[in-house]
């Protein structure tokens, strides 16, 4: 019979560094902050960890660390344990968890540690993610593309396809919601509310997307500790189970834009990953069964299509649901209660892991003023590259 992952892997510890322009913190500092917070939460010490996974997507941005698991072992003193570095565009942090979870199911290790971390600031002007797209991509194909530009292609097609929307108001409703949630989160990069006027007045980045439609450039680290359900039970951890994981590789780095089947209002990578995760978790109607969602809102237009790809709403309804408050903190399906990428930025390797931290703690009921009403199941979602990768992970008790 085919192996499954459902109810076999338990998250027993979570931790975050501060997310922000962490000029006072090194890469190692952020790793230590997040990892020790997770270990403390689990009541463990470094010695208890049998293997680890480091999620870092762009080590050469800061030029110093992240190209190998050694960058995790060194600051924590994890020697001589095996540590693997994972890189999978924006799905890095979640894919690192997926790899750790598979290792737990294998039975080879009792406790594994996953840390997702990225240093995006403190780089020379050509070292940013944008400059990377300009200078380090194919000399000809897609030259001119930026990530906000991709989600501008999406926004323009979305509002061309679905009538009855005021594009500016619809996009802004997502930014307003996520910034409000972030204002309640002491770990967020941006902890202040933004208004519709502010958003509409902010400079254009890729029409119609303005600066406040885009996530900021941020440093940060997140960590989780995983073990088997048996060990979690036996040792009395406050644990949340992984119910299902789906990961789909759908496109290459350049191919999305040349694919005649791409309609730019949906990403196959997200749809297929969600379907696989729901099948594993036994979820038939996510709009009724999922109580809290952290999804990939790198840009406001992304959140609209993500909610539809996750089948929380029907095609073309994502905008309406955002406008009507269905996805707000106390709405029917709260989306990005942490504040999302909008408030936390997108330290690429950290994001997926950070989302897991939020979902697990929402299910545990530990989110204070951000707590959503008793979620039975929650999910995280990342969309990586220009539509290359999708990953969805469902959690529950």
């Amino acid at each position, binding site marked *: 019979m085919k192996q499954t992952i459902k109810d076999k892997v338990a998250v027993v510890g979570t931790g975050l560094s501060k997310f922000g322009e962490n000029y006072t913190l090194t890469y190692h500092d952020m790793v230590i902050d997040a990892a020790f917070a997770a270990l403390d939460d689990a009541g463990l010490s470094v010695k208890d960890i049998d293997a680890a996974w480091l999620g870092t997507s762009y080590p050469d941005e800061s030029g110093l660390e992240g190209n190998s698991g050694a960058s995790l072992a060194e600051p924590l003193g994890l020697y001589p344990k095996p540590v693997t570095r994972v890189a999978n565009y924006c799905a890095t942090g979640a894919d690192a968890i997926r790899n750790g979870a598979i290792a737990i199911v294998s039975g080879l290790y009792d406790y594994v540690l996953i840390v997702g971390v990225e240093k995006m600031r403190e780089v020379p002007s050509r070292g940013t993610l944008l400059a990377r797209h*300009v200078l380090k991509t194919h*000399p000809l194909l897609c*030259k001119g593309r930026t990530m906000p*530009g991709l989600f501008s292609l999406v926004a323009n097609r979305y509002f061309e396809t679905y009538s009855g929307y005021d594009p500016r108001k619809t996009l802004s409703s997502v930014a307003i919601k996520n910034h409000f949630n972030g204002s309640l989160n002491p770990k967020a990069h941006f902890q202040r509310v933004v208004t519709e006027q502010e958003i509409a007045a902010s400079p254009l980045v*890729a029409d119609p997307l303005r600066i406040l439609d885009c996530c900021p450039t941020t440093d940060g680290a997140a960590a989780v500790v995983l073990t088997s359900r048996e060990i979690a039970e036996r040792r009395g951890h406050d644990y949340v189970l992984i119910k299902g994981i789906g990961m789909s590789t759908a496109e290459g780095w350049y191919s999305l834009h*040349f694919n005649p089947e*791409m309609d730019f209002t949906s990403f196959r990578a997200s749809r297929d990953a969600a379907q696989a995760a729901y099948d594993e978790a036994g979820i038939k109607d996510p709009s009724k069964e999922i109580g809290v969602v952290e999804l990939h809102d790198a840009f406001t237009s992304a959140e609209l299509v993500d909610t539809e790809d996750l089948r929380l709403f029907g095609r073309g309804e994502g905008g309406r649901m955002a406008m009507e408050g269905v996805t707000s903190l106390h709405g029917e399906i709260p989306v990005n209660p942490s504040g999302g990428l909008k408030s936390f930025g997108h330290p690429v390797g950290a994001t997926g892991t950070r989302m897991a931290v939020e979902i697990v703690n929402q299910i545990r009921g530990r989110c204070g003023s951000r707590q959503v009403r008793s979620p039975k199941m929650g999910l995280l979602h990342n969309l990586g590259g220009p539509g290359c990768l999708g990953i969805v992970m469902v959690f529950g008790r």
Partner: protein
Amino acid sequence: MFRVPRSTVGETWGHARAAGERPIASYDEDSLTMAADALAKCIGHPLCPAKPDGVFFASTTAPYWEKQSSTLLAVVSGLGRSAITADFASSLRAGTAAVKSAVDAVSSGAAKSLMVVASDCRPAQPGAPFEAWTGDSAACLEIVGDERQCVAEIEAIHQVNEEFLDVWRRSDEAFVNGGDPLFSGPHGYVRLVSESILGLLQKANLNQSQINRIAVNGPDYRSYQSALAKAGFSQDFVRRSDAGHWLAHGDTGTTAPFAALAQVLMNSQPGDKVILAAYGNGNCDCLLLRVNDRINEMKSLSPGPNAPTSRILDYPQYLRLKGLLTDESLNPYSSPALLWKEQKQNLLLLGTKCRQCSTFAYPRRRVCLKCGSKDDFEDAGLGRTGRIYTFSVERVFPSPGPTVCMAVADMEGGGRFYAQVADCEPGELKVGAPVELCLRKLHDGGGYRNYYWKFRLSRVNC
């Protein structure tokens, strides 16, 4: 391509206000991309006989001192590995030098037909008095050996060579230089052009009254008038020949004689005798053409003069495009080996068609995504026209302009393409808008020119 009112150029420098508009290439164009455009239109013309045997490129502003431009032109035009290619340079008469060589080639039977494309971005120093009258332009014509296929036959050729310093540009200079025009006008251009024309008339045993029109370049309108008067032509003849061309085009380098010829031919009748002349630095070529019946076919196939649709810029925008108000220069990754490996895909726009399941793929694929067959495909061309499916306006991508417009388009015949949209204002992008592909210079990554395709909104060109 854009236009700058000549008056704004003059105003900036306190020169006399000049009339009309100066054509200017965009930052992603150069003499090679403009030539590619003209060449594509000419080869695609219904009157153009089957695939030519080669292409000659004439310019004083080629993108390289050392790297032939006609090669790339032959490649993107699909002329094959054995095409005859050559660059002609160093003088405003380079275009007619190329024509003469093409005539020799088709006369000897070395080729059935050859394309001659002249293209220049005439480089004037900001503030130079003639700056407003320089322009960027390209023109293409085809020389054929079979007289049944041509619209005009070349009946006689005469040239004059004299060592003369009037206008020059040293290899270490960016801008065209010149001596005292009060000397070099009358004693250079005027004398030598008239001498060359008179020599041609004598060779052909004709007198001035038997010539219907002349197409010739010149440094300014007054010199042009004087040269023709000295060659014995009437004022009426001068007016008839020019017909507003000088005002419209000005001094567009090697292109100028051909641009003038295009205008002259459109105003000609079968049986007319027309002179094509080009002058540069003491050299003057004169060719006698006899227009034949096919000119009527050419006229009926050509759109009439259209109101130009390209955008009008102001002078600072012009300086920015000319790279004279420069940004930090971009040096993206590029690799000669990579570009060489990918020529079929990137320059010829050839995708792959799976032999097993007929699935078309662009970019090219060795492993079919639908049926999994490996290395079992044939080349299949991507269409050159299409309609916008969606678009974006990039404002943070570094560029000489404030925005980089991008579009995803469904291409004619199937497949999708994603690229920059050249010469485009953000407000012009609409889902469903028709677009065509044009060759542009993307950047100078690696230290060489990286040419690739961009979209351009389809509109009537002038």
